[in-house]
């Protein structure tokens, strides 16, 4: 309850939450809301312009694409793929990253050194290039896409979590747990993990926005979601060839990407401010 009233106090957060819930609702209700199946073509109606006006919503509110598919329906179904892929990869990356970070920070010593150098190396490597190389090697599919996106993001969690663990490790309550002979698993998961979750949630929100952009970029380059399934990046790429004659093909998916990333970022910023105690103190 306190959480929601805090949310309502921030105009940016409300805006972000509103935009994001519209897209989530669109994704969930896509089969009900969409006027056409996203892959259904109608060659005779190709490139018909948007029929959206102040007085009525036509059959193709955002126009038809180069194969006569409804752009609105494709954006709705595209949001399913974009959001699902982004969420899945953030969760997978998060679990791996938190696990590695906990181990590395708690164990210390040589394993910690090795893991952190691996993280350094991967952070120094351009993520886009890494994703391109991996997808080119294993072939494009949704599963591979999630794996690649998770691969590009686990390092951030690992770093943050390790730092927090190092700070917590020598606090009294951990030392006392040690003294009474608690098993290291119990200490890591029961005592340390709950205390590092806040920064993890903040990282996860910001990662979500980054991963959406990365997924769109990969699909734009043709190595993400394969046709005919709609993905915003792919729609943008296909629409680019028609930008001079049919602006709606690239414009709407581009807007969708922008709005979702904006909303996630607004929420992420607010979360960071709210959950970070130092920030909170400063505001009070």
């Amino acid at each position, binding site marked *: 309850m306190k959480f929601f009233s805090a949310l309502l106090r921030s105009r940016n957060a409300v805006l972000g939450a509103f935009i994001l819930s519209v897209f989530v609702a669109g994704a969930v209700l896509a089969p009900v809301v969409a006027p056409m199946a996203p892959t259904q*073509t109608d060659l005779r109606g190709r490139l018909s312009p948007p029929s959206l006006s102040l007085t009525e919503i036509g059959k193709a509110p955002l126009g038809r694409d*180069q*194969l006569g598919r409804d752009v609105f329906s494709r954006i709705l179904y595209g949001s399913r793929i974009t959001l699902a892929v982004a969420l899945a990869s953030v969760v997978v990356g998060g679990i791996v990253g938190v696990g590695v970070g906990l181990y590395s920070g708690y164990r210390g010593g040589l394993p910690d050194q090795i893991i952190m150098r691996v993280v350094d190396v991967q952070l120094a490597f351009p993520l886009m290039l890494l994703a391109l190389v991996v997808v080119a090697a294993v072939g494009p599919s949704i599963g591979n896409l999630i794996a690649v996106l998770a691969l590009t993001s686990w390092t951030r969690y690992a770093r943050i979590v390790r730092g927090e663990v190092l700070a917590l490790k020598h606090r009294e309550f951990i030392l006392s747990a040690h003294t009474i002979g608690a098993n290291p698993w119990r200490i890591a998961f029961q005592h340390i993990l709950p205390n590092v979750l806040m920064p993890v949630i903040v990282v996860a929100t910001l990662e979500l926005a980054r991963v959406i952009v990365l997924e769109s970029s990969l699909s734009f380059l043709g190595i993400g979601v394969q*046709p*005919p399934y709609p993905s915003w990046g792919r729609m943008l790429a296909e629409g680019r*060839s*028609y930008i001079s*004659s049919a602006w709606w093909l690239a414009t709407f998916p581009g807007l969708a990407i922008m709005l979702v990333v904006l909303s996630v970022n607004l929420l992420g910023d607010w979360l960071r401010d709210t959950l970070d105690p130092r920030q909170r103190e400063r505001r009070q």
Partner: protein
Amino acid sequence: MRLRSFFNGAVATAALACLATPSLAERLTVALSANVTLLDPAMTTTVGTDLSVISHLYTPLVIRGPDLKLQPALASSWEAVDDNTWRFKLRPDVKFANGEPLDAAAVKWNIDRILDPNQKAPVRAWLSAIKDVRVVDPTTVDLVTSSPYPSLPDQMSMIFFLPPVWSKSHNPAIEALGSGPYDLVEFKPGDRVVLKAKPNYTAGPKPAFDDVVFRVIPEDASRISALLVGEVDLISGVAPSELARIKNSGKFVVGAVPSTRMQFVKFNNLKAPFKDNPALRLALNYAVDKQAILDTLFEGYGSLNACQPLNESYFGFNPDLKPFPYDPAKAKELLAKAGYPNGLTIEFEVPLGRYLLGAEVSQAIAAQLEEVGVKTNLVEMEYGRWIDKFQNAGNVGSLSYLGQSWPTLNADGMLSLFETGNRYSYYENADFTRLIREARSTTDEKKRVEIYKKATESFCADPAHIVLFNQPTTYAFADRVKWTVRSDDWFRAVDVQLAK
């Protein structure tokens, strides 16, 4: 004072150089939609990119002009001495850039190289009838075949000759030392090929351009913008919907000519589900509304192919066969007969960047197939990677979208692409293969036409692919040049002149 006169002199020289440059070095920049993979003439059959570039560097025996007629090149004349022997008279003055003569011995060395099984030359299947290359004298060469080969001179229009001595110590795939009108300056696969005219070239017409640059621009929209901003002088493979816009932007000439290339969806008939399932092959042919695709995506350009892998420009075309009608009900019926009453799922490979609107056409076909219950998993890939699977690895997907033509414009060459045993065929039709081999062994044109009629009928009863259409060759070029556009895929700088 002395300093000043030095400057004056320098300025004057520079000014002279500036004045002189435009008339000396005219540059022609050509956009290619797919990569030039290699420069070894024996190791490629891709006319639109590899062989077109190679034809600027090397000389064939005969050459096909923009009017699609054969013209003399290295050979000044040719004749059939008997049923199994073609005699070519060579020009005496053709030399490679290092002084090596391009004589009968060099011709023999090159053809023997292609015929060597270890070389694995893709074009070998079309020359395997050559039993012996006989050097009569330095300017006369006899090609002796094991059976009559009436279209051999046509076939030789895509065979180019390397310098034998130079080739021993160099890699002709990435280097070139030619006998043609141009020298290779730079070859950057995936980016550009830069050529410079030989100053003392006498073996053919003198090209109008001293510098020719081929730039690889796979993206359609980028190709158009490169033309519009003047980075390139001519492009082809323009989406028909863009032609009017380019024309309206001012100084450009646009148009379309019918192509000798036929588009289709290839089946891999050597593996399930197409292997030994003629009903399935027929079913898919009834499931695609080809005319709708031409009317919409191609804005009415292009024409349907009759039920055979030939069109009107080929010798041996069968005018009695008609295109498959669009009949989804019949397609479903045949699917049930093929053992798939509830439909099936097939992989569909789409090479990108090479065929006009390839991605769009493939998705349209995939949607139409889905309507009769055939679901497809589209896999888009770069053309080079796909051609490697198709040509070298022998494991092309169950379906793939491609277009083929054969430079000889003869049923013999074109139908060989479907002959059992040919690496491009992926098709087993014993009757068809027997017939085209039979046709190859007679010189009687009438009899050959009769046999090709039977062969194309056999193909039509059991098609190797979803027969689609001739795609139009669309083009656009800056009006500072004048390009004689041709309907086969060859591009030659000599077909381009400066507009006066």
